[in-house]
């Protein structure tokens, strides 16, 4: 890991958004107190001096501060003053009052500006610029008096408004330590080339304020050096900070107990992947879920990243002091998936690749067919009184494929069965009558051959009637048989079908370490 490069990147971020942690020549000390993370966007562990601050609070503070600053820069001073005032109503930080006063001064609403400056001093009794602000109040009061006199005399006012230096707004700096309670010193860098020196004297720097973390300080635009004293067994630490106008700078310092730390950041894909550090059996809570960075002790670590439906990612990682390791992990999906069945039918029976896999009943949980090899599978679904459906379903890798079996009712075949039975009876009757007719015919024929056949033999009429009956029975049987066949085949309803739903990820099942998929 190129720490210099990485630190440069971090520096850039600090200058752009919040603060700048200086890496002085005393690198050892600086590393001993390695800055964890900070920053505006990831202020998940921020808090105020009095009480833990919610992330949303910091965001709101930042919102009002930055919006007021943007209006201020746009010379919409009255509007900027209103936003700063609104910010103060929600969060009683003195910087809001100060900035509102400056904006009102720029709007030449001097009376209100004076009032705001006074309120600023009331809010921040230990304001390091108290004397300057009081002078500013006096100057504004003089200006107000002069303006009134000028209005009475009609002579022009010789007093000028605020100087350019006095146009700058204040920013809010929040310093938090882990653990809290450490003493924090805010030094203002007086010269650009000054370098914070160890010891009691700090040439080029002026101690503005000392507070106990978490500390909230309203600072003017400029460069500062922040020092955290030794706190119990925790080592001291320090950092540079450049305060930008109208910003909220939030810093978090993780105090080290003398052990050297490294910084590890994991960015997994999928983002909900769990990261375990030195816990290959996952017996503890996950180190992180999704993207996460944190100080961890130096040394050899076992990294395990898992996500349902993905093959686990393992890696051994050796971290050295001060090393910052940023790892992106793209997990590969497992080679099997799940089919999840439900249906509109009260009960279905599911077969996959010719093997029964279970039944599903209405009201129960969907039927999950697990451990299916990813790829095409022959799925058959049957339901009593419904048309069966046979189709090919592609099982996704490491995902759940919902399958809704839309089972269409089988058309009733009662009439067809009745017709077929009657047809069968008629055909059987026809066969019987035909055979009887044949028998009688044979008898008559034999009798004729024997010369004894007499006119009016009753078998003649019987045989004819049997023949006619056989004809009628055959025709009726054939007709009804045809009708039955038609009614058996006729199907006005559409076929049943399998409706594939949107793919879903594996849920809580730790499937990553399972094997032997079919």
């Amino acid at each position, binding site marked *: 890991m190129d720490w210099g490069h990485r630190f440069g990147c971090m520096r850039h971020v600090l200058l752009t958004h919040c603060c700048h942690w200086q890496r002085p020549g005393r690198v050892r000390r600086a590393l001993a107190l390695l800055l964890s993370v900070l920053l505006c966007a990831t202020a998940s562990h921020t808090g105020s001096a009095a009480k833990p601050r919610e992330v949303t609070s910091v965001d709101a503070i930042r919102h009002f501060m930055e919006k007021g600053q943007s209006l201020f820069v746009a010379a919409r001073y009255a509007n900027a003053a209103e936003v700063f005032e609104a910010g103060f109503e929600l969060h009683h930080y003195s910087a809001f009052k100060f900035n509102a006063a400056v904006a009102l001064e720029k709007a030449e609403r001097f009376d209100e500006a004076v009032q705001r400056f006074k309120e600023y001093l009331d809010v921040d009794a230990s304001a390091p610029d108290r004397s300057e602000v009081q002078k500013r109040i006096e100057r504004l009061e003089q200006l107000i008096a002069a303006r009134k006199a000028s209005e009475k005399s009609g002579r022009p006012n010789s007093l000028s408004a605020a100087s350019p230096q006095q146009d700058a707004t204040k920013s809010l700096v929040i310093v938090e330590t882990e653990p809290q309670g450490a003493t924090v010193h805010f030094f203002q860098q007086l010269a650009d080339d000054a370098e914070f020196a160890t010891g009691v004297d700090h040439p080029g720097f002026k101690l503005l304020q000392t507070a106990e973390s978490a500390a909230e300080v309203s600072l003017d635009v400029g460069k500062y050096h922040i020092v955290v004293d030794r706190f119990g067994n925790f080592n001291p630490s320090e950092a540079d900070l450049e305060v930008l106008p109208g910003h909220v700078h939030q810093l978090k310092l993780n105090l080290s107990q003398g052990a050297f730390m490294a910084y590890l950041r994991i960015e997994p894909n999928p983002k909900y992947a769990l990261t375990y550090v030195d816990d290959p059996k996952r017996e503890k809570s996950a180190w992180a879920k999704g993207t996460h960075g944190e100080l961890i002790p130096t040394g050899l670590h076992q990294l395990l990243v898992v996500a349902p439906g993905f093959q686990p990612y393992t890696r051994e990682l050796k971290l050295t002091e001060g090393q910052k390791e940023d790892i992106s992990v793209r997990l590969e999906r497992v080679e099997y998936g799940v089919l999840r069945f439900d249906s509109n039918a009260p009960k279905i029976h599911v077969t996959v690749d010719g093997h029964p896999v279970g039944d599903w009943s209405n009201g129960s949980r969907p039927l999950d067919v697990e451990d299916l090899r990813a790829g095409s599978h022959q799925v058959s679904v049957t339901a009593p009184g419904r048309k069966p459906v046979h189709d090919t379903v592609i099982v996704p890798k490491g995902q759940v494929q919902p399958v809704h079996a839309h089972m269409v009712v089988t058309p009733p075949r009662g009439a067809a069965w009745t017709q077929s039975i009657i047809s069968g009876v008629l055909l059987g009757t*026809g*066969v019987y*009558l*035909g*055979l*009887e*007719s*044949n028998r*009688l*015919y044979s*008898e*008559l*024929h034999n*009798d*004729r051959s024997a*010369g*004894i*056949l*007499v*006119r*009016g*033999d*009753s*078998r*003649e009429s019987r*045989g*004819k009637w*049997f*023949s*006619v009956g*056989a*004809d009628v029975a*055959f025709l009726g049987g054939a007709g009804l048989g045809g009708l039955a066949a038609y009614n058996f085949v006729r199907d006005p309803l559409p076929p049943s079908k399998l409706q594939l739903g949107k793919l879903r990820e594996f849920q809580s099942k730790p499937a990553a370490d399972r094997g032997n998929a079919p």
Partner: protein
Amino acid sequence: MRRAGLIVFSMWSVLGCTWTRFDDVTDNPPVERFDVANDISGAGQSVATFATAAGSDLAVSAVGKLLLFELGTGVAPSRNAVKTLACDGDASCLLTRQIVGLTPSALLGNQGCVAYGIGTSDVGTATAASSVQLLCEDLEQRSLPVPDTFTTWFTGNATSANTVVSMATTRRGDVQPLVVSVPNAQATWFYDGVDPTPIELPALPDNNLAGRALAVIGEGGGYWVAAGSVTTDNTVWLYHVNGDRTATLAGCIEGSPQFGRGLATGNFDDDGIDDLAVADDQRVVLIRGSNLASVAENAGGPCTALDAVQVIGSATCTQLPDLDGCSASPYAGAIATGNLDAIGPDELIVGAPNTSVRGEEAAGAVFVYAWNNDALHVVQGLYVSSAASDNLLGTSVAIAHAADIDTVVAGVPGDDTVMVFYCNSLMPAQSRSARCH
């Protein structure tokens, strides 16, 4: 294989659908049945045929009725009676047990006729006159006078349908005589076929009565007349009618029980003289016609035993397929003779009404016997395909000469009809009509 069998079976079943094939098989059947009105019962008690100008006619007696059918010259008879007469058994008409067909002759006005009874016209008047009644082919009734002695008896005695009247004629001859007997009247007389005046036959000695069956055999210028005895059940009396119109009692023959219950004549030994067929309860014996003179030699003496006369053959019951009549008695209900094969001697036709046919008891059958190698052999048993119990086919039999061949006619009184068997196994191929195919 099973499928093929099933297909064949199905096809065979489907073939049963063609009902018209029954018309093919039943059109012009070998046996013709004659229709009789529903109000007539017992039709077929007696049958007779006679030649006509249009071929031949068939006469059938029923209870109190006589029916006449036209057989024509071929095998297409009129199956409905062309004439029906009432003969109710009272004095106006006594129906004979055996009606007799007579060929046309001058005596009969050159009409073929059937002699069917005796009756008295104008009963109860001064002009009352008894006569033998005939129905002829022109559908007119004719009559022959009866002896005065019979007229006296007839007018003085009550009669009924049960009063026995018998008649017979010869098997052949251009002029056919007629013999009539009324046993109860002790009267038997003879017509020679030329002179309508009857010739009275002598009375039997010892008050014997005869005439339950009659037969006539022509011999030279005279005739032998055979009459079954009424007073004894095993005797046949013989008369001889001479050419001078005199008659004598020639003798008698004794046989087994019911000997003489049926009589017929025919030429079986092919000697030119008809032979006498006599039925008893179990068989039919053939007595050589030329041997009857030997019986006459014993005239006035005791009857000649059957064993003493020349019996040329006998016909007994024979089991045939579908036919079983041997357990019934009597065997022969009626006998007749005919030349079914149109060559050589005659065949004996025995009506056996008590024969079981295909299990139908007393359905009746007709057995045909041929004389061959000095013996009678059964040739065929004729019955009808519609045989039913108690039809009693064969109660009467006759021979019809149609299409130049003799055919068998049988009465079926149990079914009130008459059957004509147009085909038989003896019929020459050239004589076989479409009915026989």
